[in-house]
């Protein structure tokens, strides 16, 4: 687990250096993810340690958003004044984005899928 964590942090570090060094608008961890993906393609997949550590981190991904979410208490005044447009926009826009993405993807893959959809989990 320590070896796998070291590897993940190293890729994040390299990602951060690239992001800041080239003043890219993309965050370091996302670049780190892309680099690790390329490394996995070259090496033919993750070892057991990395697979398990990644699985454990991702299983409780929700937990990691809690500290930033609690920041809502900083915006009492603005939320009191603008809660209606913000809330309606968040709900409708999120539903629209899910719906449009799903319908476009479904319509583009439908024919191919009808023939071999059995294999899915």
């Amino acid at each position, binding site marked *: 687990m320590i070896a796998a964590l070291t590897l993940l942090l190293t890729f994040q570090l390299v990602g951060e250096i690239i992001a800041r060094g080239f003043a890219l608008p993309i965050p370091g961890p996302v670049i780190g*993810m892309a680099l690790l993906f390329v490394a996995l393609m070259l090496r033919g997949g993750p070892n057991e340690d990395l697979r398990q550590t990644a699985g454990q981190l991702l299983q409780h991904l929700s937990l990691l958003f809690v500290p930033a979410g609690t920041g809502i208490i900083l915006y009492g005044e603005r939320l009191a004044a*603008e809660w209606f447009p913000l809330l309606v926009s968040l709900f409708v826009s999120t*539903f629209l984005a899910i719906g449009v993405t799903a319908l476009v993807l479904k319509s583009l893959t439908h024919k191919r899928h009808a023939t071999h959809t059995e294999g899915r989990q």
Partner: protein
Amino acid sequence: MNPNLEEVWVYLSTSPLLGLTLTLLAYQLAFAIYKRAGFHPTANPVLISVAILATLLLATGTPYQTYFDGAQFVHFLLGPATVALAIPLYAQWPKLKAMAGPLTIALVAGSLTAALSAWGIGALLGASRESLMSLAPKSVTTPIAMGVAERIGGLPSLTAVLVISAGIIGAVFGRAVLHRLHVGDHAVHGFAIGIASHGIGTARAFQVSEQAGAFAALAMGLNGLLTAVSLPWIMPWVEQLFGR
């Protein structure tokens, strides 16, 4: 107050231990409720944890910064967790590659819908310019959204709250929306949730299946890239077009 208790409080309110432990306790409790509710999306663990912690902080008059000094250790793990998304992506690569064309088109359609509809609805209902520019990147992962908001004239920390709200909304109601549209395929399900609701949607998609999770992770990464590159030049143009 008893002098010893006061000393204990002085220690706890300045040490990171309390914020960190409370975050984990709140999550444990929220996860137990989620489990008890049969993993029903309405009992979203992020939503319940945030509600517990926000209530506690407001009730005790604790500043957010004091809490975050402890909670930052959890927050920090978002970085390595994002890197770790490469592993499910690798596992699903053959299927992703086979769908590359449709995925690209759905990405562009979904990404534009997410940003422009958030801006448009907010503008119609009279939100302030700062709020609108904080809303536009609400569907992408927090660090990208905060950076984009800063460049287009939003408030980065308000953006973080809106991003997490959009994530929770997608995680809670996404399945119901997709059910209405008769979408049963886990790949399509995951991709749509990842576009609209980034990491929180991805966390939820992993509970549906590994395939849904991998497609959500891919959608989150791609939408993050596309939004980071496109919004800084689309938004000034949109504002000019609609005379704002």
